[in-house]
């Protein structure tokens, strides 16, 4: 049984002037436990709307999302969403330690174990030594690391990520991609990732769904079978990597 199912999901918005926007066409897909899958699509194709619907933060116009066999009505307990805007999603009044601990508190874990667990996660995302800092004292890349550690502290079975590295510079982005893969390999969480960066999607994922422009539909599904652990230099240098990249690029180009 898939851990996450999206069935005939569609979403329309009514805008201020009364016209309605059809953001998501009709999306059906399934994610197996432990997979790393990505949606890749052009900017403004409704990717965020899709992820917010899956996270139970907005209600779809039709269709449904099923997590572990149960239909989503409101945020499901086994799933956490990491937002692109790390600077807006961290709790400014909590230290790094406090932010990460929030994930455990939300789970209801309050014990001596939670303290060591928090520190382990901070170390896992590479922020050892910054426990007592406040979010504003860290760079963007480090802030997003905090957001990831906080989400992991919640021990979600599915981690949703909405272009988490979209507003970071190129080098920081590569660095965080590898951190994410390392964490994923260690914790075996299922990750559903959204990006408009085709190469990022290929580098990270087991499977990719290519989305069209509004109203977004899945126009292709691709399996990515590069061996793991992957490497920023070697994996990206493979001939098949370029072929995949060009294929997806053409798909998106045709669709919009």
């Amino acid at each position: 049984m898939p851990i996450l199912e999206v069935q005939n999901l569609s979403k329309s918005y009514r805008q201020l002037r009364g016209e309605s926007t059809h953001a998501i066409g009709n999306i059906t897909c399934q994610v197996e436990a432990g997979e790393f899958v990505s949606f890749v699509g052009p900017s403004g194709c409704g990717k965020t709307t899709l992820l917010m619907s899956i996270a139970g933060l907005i209600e779809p116009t039709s269709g449904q999302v099923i997590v572990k066999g149960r239909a989503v009505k409101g945020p499901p307990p086994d799933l956490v969403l990491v937002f692109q805007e790390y600077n807006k999603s961290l709790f400014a009044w909590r230290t790094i330690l406090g932010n990460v601990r929030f994930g455990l508190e939300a789970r209801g874990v309050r014990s001596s174990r939670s303290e060591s667990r928090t520190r382990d996660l901070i170390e896992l995302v590479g922020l050892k030594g910054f426990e007592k800092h406040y979010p504003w004292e860290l760079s963007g890349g480090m802030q997003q690391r905090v957001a990831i550690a906080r989400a992991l502290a919640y021990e979600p079975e599915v981690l949703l990520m909405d272009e988490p590295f979209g507003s970071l510079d190129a080098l920081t982005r590569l660095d965080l991609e590898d951190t994410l893969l390392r964490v994923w390999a260690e914790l075996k969480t299922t990750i559903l990732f959204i990006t408009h960066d085709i190469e990022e999607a290929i580098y990270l994922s087991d499977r990719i769904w290519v989305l069209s422009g509004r109203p977004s539909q899945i126009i292709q599904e691709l399996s990515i079978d590069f061996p793991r652990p992957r490497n920023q230099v070697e994996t990206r240098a493979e001939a098949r990597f370029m072929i995949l990249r060009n294929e997806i690029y053409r798909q998106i180009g045709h669709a919009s």
Partner: protein
Amino acid sequence: MNGVKQFNWIGWLVLAALLCLWEYGARSSPKLQYYFPPVSQILYALGQLIISGRIAAHLLATISRFLEGYMLAALLAVSMGVFLGYFRFAYSLLETLIEFLRPMPSVAIVPVAVLALGIGDAMIVAVTIYASVWPMLVNTIDGVRRIEPILIDTARTFGLGRWAILWRVVLPGASPYIVTGLRISLSIALILVTTAEMIAGSRGLGFFILDQERSFNSRNMYAGIIVVAALGYALNRLFLALENKTLRWQRGMVAGGSV
């Protein structure tokens, strides 16, 4: 900005110079002395009032009324403000009323309070509550509304319910605004306590100041004014110390911005 504030020698020298001028002026003109008794005599009177314990009862009465009024107002305003800021519909019901009452000078409510509550502690406390509620209420509403929606969504995705979000995200997120409201209301509450004590009451610093003026004892009157001023100063310092401790996370954010 560096954290430790330097002692302002020049500021204190200016104050001392003005007091010397006052002393000199008062001693050189008996007519002036009637309105402005020499500083030394005021300080002497103050010392007498302190030693005899006469001022202590008035000071305590003022402090207890102030605390009662201010604390109740804070409780009322912050809980109402969080509610009104969070639930837009509730705010739209009360918005016009709030905008109408808020700019009204609060002392105008004193006659109403006297009519309803007579001249006693209840009236003074009620007036203090009324006056100090507004800055706290308006700032709390503002702070709650400025909370980043993504922060709320973050809390929701972590499975927090509405009340948990209010308590653990909205309240701390709005706390810099709430504290601003609390600080503004601090001086307003003290103003209203003393004013109300002048109008009605048989104890309290406001009553004492006015009573001494009416008994032509201007030295004691000034001594009373000094005590009120010292009280205001002490409350403000105490508040700043607490603020520094609780809002430490915010200080650098405002000064330095993000990296």
